[in-house]
């Protein structure tokens, strides 16, 4: 018998999901139940990437994920940037590259890139990292500054 999963942990803390309906999406759990508004709601159909979080280190669209699906996992969001070395490094690179304007897509980009760097390591070719960000939309920057930010984050990864 598999033991029941432990509680969901968000940015290192156990999440209180008392009374949560089974149909609740992870995005809504984060934003409205746990008041972690750093993760952004864009399309809610998986097309824009603004809601990207890490589930056990893997880049995940929180709008298409039921919270019950990830019971027992570690979820990392932009709100936990200070405690996650990879997210913190990517954030610094994006700031240095000026890789954001309105900033609404930014948490998704930063978390997705941090996930890619965790998964593939800093030796991954930059083209591979950029390919991995194709599902994140930005309307302000034209991506040019984001591409500069990705190169910088990769160069500064250990």
């Amino acid at each position: 018998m598999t033991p029941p999963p432990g509680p969901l942990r968000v940015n290192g803390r156990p999440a209180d999901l008392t009374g949560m309906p089974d149909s609740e999406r992870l995005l809504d759990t984060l934003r409205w139940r746990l008041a972690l508004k750093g993760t952004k709601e864009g399309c809610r159909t998986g097309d824009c990437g603004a809601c990207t979080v890490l589930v056990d280190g893997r880049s995940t669209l929180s709008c298409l994920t039921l919270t019950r699906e990830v019971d027992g996992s570690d979820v990392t969001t932009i709100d936990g940037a200070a405690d996650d070395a990879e997210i913190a490094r990517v954030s610094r690179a994006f700031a240095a590259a000026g890789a954001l304007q309105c900033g609404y897509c930014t948490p998704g980009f930063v978390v997705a890139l941090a996930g890619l760097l965790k998964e593939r390591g800093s030796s991954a070719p930059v083209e591979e990292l950029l390919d991995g960000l194709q599902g994140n939309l930005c309307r302000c920057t034209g991506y040019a500054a984001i591409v500069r930010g990705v190169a910088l984050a990769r160069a500064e990864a250990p």
Partner: protein
Amino acid sequence: MSVAARSDLEVKLAGRAEYGADLELPGMLWGALVPSPVAHGKIRHVDLGGARALPGVVAVGADDLATLLPRGQGDAERPIFPADEVAYRNQPLAAVAAPTLAEARRAAAAVRVDIEPLPALVDLESEFPDWPGPDAARSPHIITHVHARHGDLEEAFRTADHVVEETYRTSSVHHVALEPHACVASVVGDRWTVRTTTQTPFGIREDLSLLLGVPEASVVVEGTWVGGGFGGKGASLLEPYALLLSRAAGRPVRLALDYRQEFELGRTTLPAVIRLATAVKAGRIVGRRVRLLLDTGSSLPGRDWSTGYSIGFLLGPYTTAAFEVEGYGVRTNKPAFGPHRAPFAPQCAFAVESHLGEVARVAGIDPVRFRADHLWRDGDTTPMGQAVGPFGLGAALAAATAVADRWRAEAPADHGVGIGLGFWSTGTGAGGEARLVLTPTELRVEQGEREIGSGSVQRGLVAVAERALGLPPERIRVDYLSTADAPFDSGVFGSRTVGALGRAVVEAATALRADLAARSGVAARDVSLAVEAGEIVCRSPNGRRTVRSLLTAEEASRGIVASGRHFAKSNTIDERRVVAGSFYPFTDFTGAAHVAEVSVDRETGAVRVERYAAFQDIGTVVDPATARGQVEGGIAMGLGIALTEEALWSDDGRLLNPHLLDYRIPTLGEVPAPEVTFVEGFPGAGPFGAKGLGEPPIIPVPATVAAAVRDACGAHVTELPLSAERVARTLKLL
């Protein structure tokens, strides 16, 4: 020149910036709209009973307005909920609020709507098959007629060596700001407060005052961080419904669009049909005839600005001996036409640039040289009779031509290189005021705009203050105040923030300097500010004094306050050239010349942009990093208009592609990193001769891509976007 980073990056990267979509107040209800199921129809009955029977639900409709609004509706022509007739599909007929979003949606679905459908006008050309024949003018769907002419056009066309006549069609494009519209309203007593994601807090206040019939002093609009605007967050949309719901519920109400509604309810650029005719004699343009049929959606007669504003762009930045422009705004069953980054100008530039390229070919002249020969120069007047003034487009084109020649020499044989031009002007709006507050340790810029992403407020105004007073940027902070506390400003639109509000900042800085000089007993020019040992000090020939020591007792808690204003100085056009309708003068002229290298798939028609370069007339660069960001972003958005973005409707007015999957904006792999060059030295209306930059970079993009596609494969595409299908059809591959 400073290259200081924007001070909003940190809060945004930490996920701590609160956007409209993030707003939450204790005890708030969640709102939802009840959409019209048809695009046009007569309302028989809207029954809110089913919604009101649900627990905790508040519902408001047309019948409730008289009791909810102290003086009844403010604007009879723009009822908040229609009582008689529906003008477009999904038009809100009622609004509901409930303790959760799911309950609000159930309540909205429980509202019974009984509407007698009427025929909908969706496709412009179905109504005007013979346009520009005389029938169009008699149509009841025409809400705007603009007409201007100058010179002997008939003679020009009669005696021309070549006459080229073409028809262009352009499509509707959405803003696709990633943050959907969202607000939280809270009505207490006679104070109507709304926090909202907006480009124009004061514009929203004025609009709400008109719609709700309450004085402006009773309305407070507080902006949030804005997750992209692009013109789509420049007028009230959800705020009236949220305020009515809050009034009825006695509690705060959150109302937000989901992304599908964002497509369905957004007010944006709509389709147009453009007919252009040009007469050439001895290599010179001697006559231009321009006709425009513009879809203005459900805009009201007398309230459409778009037709008269945009038609000037169809003449392009070119001289002509004689011309005639005539445009009709057509009321259709869609949401009203609304501004989308340089409203309709990229589409106009596509038509006029592609057309003049064709004219040059017919006349046997190089298309770039032909355009260069007719460009406006300082000292010229526009066809509408306005003096041109300093205009850097000629210099930009010369630089662009050199790059295009080099790329053409380097490119593989199946690639094409094209050049496109565009012009714009720095908007002023109704004007603006700024307050500077100098404290012992910092300078605050108090103002009423919100940063929408471009950096024009958060970095642009700081850079202006920095340059005017010589303080370092880390000592200058922008304060965002609600309409109750901020000095008036029109808001973020028309590329006007640095150009117009920046002028107010300069004026306030001048007043501040004069004030400090008086306190120091010297002339204003002899005063400078600096930071020493953490304190701001005022230096003058009489020595140095800390700001702290200059404060009077009354100023001790706040600081030294100085105000500046900038209200539009209207330029003029030659009104004798206007036959009918309104045409608008420009403030200054700014130009952009772009170069694209593309490849075209010879089996599918798919276009790929390989290289891109932009040469931007800017007057003076106020901040290099943000300026570059505007050009890079504008190019990407323009590539969407050029290649993939197109709203599609069914004949009965249903938007067919209200998703990011079937309405495709450019993605990370589809936009080449552009080469960006600024052309300085042709001063504009802004501080230090700066010109507005938010909009100009998007304007030449579709024209540039179309020119490159034609160069690559010979396809002369006359409709936007240049989708693979359109290119393939033009090449007769389909």
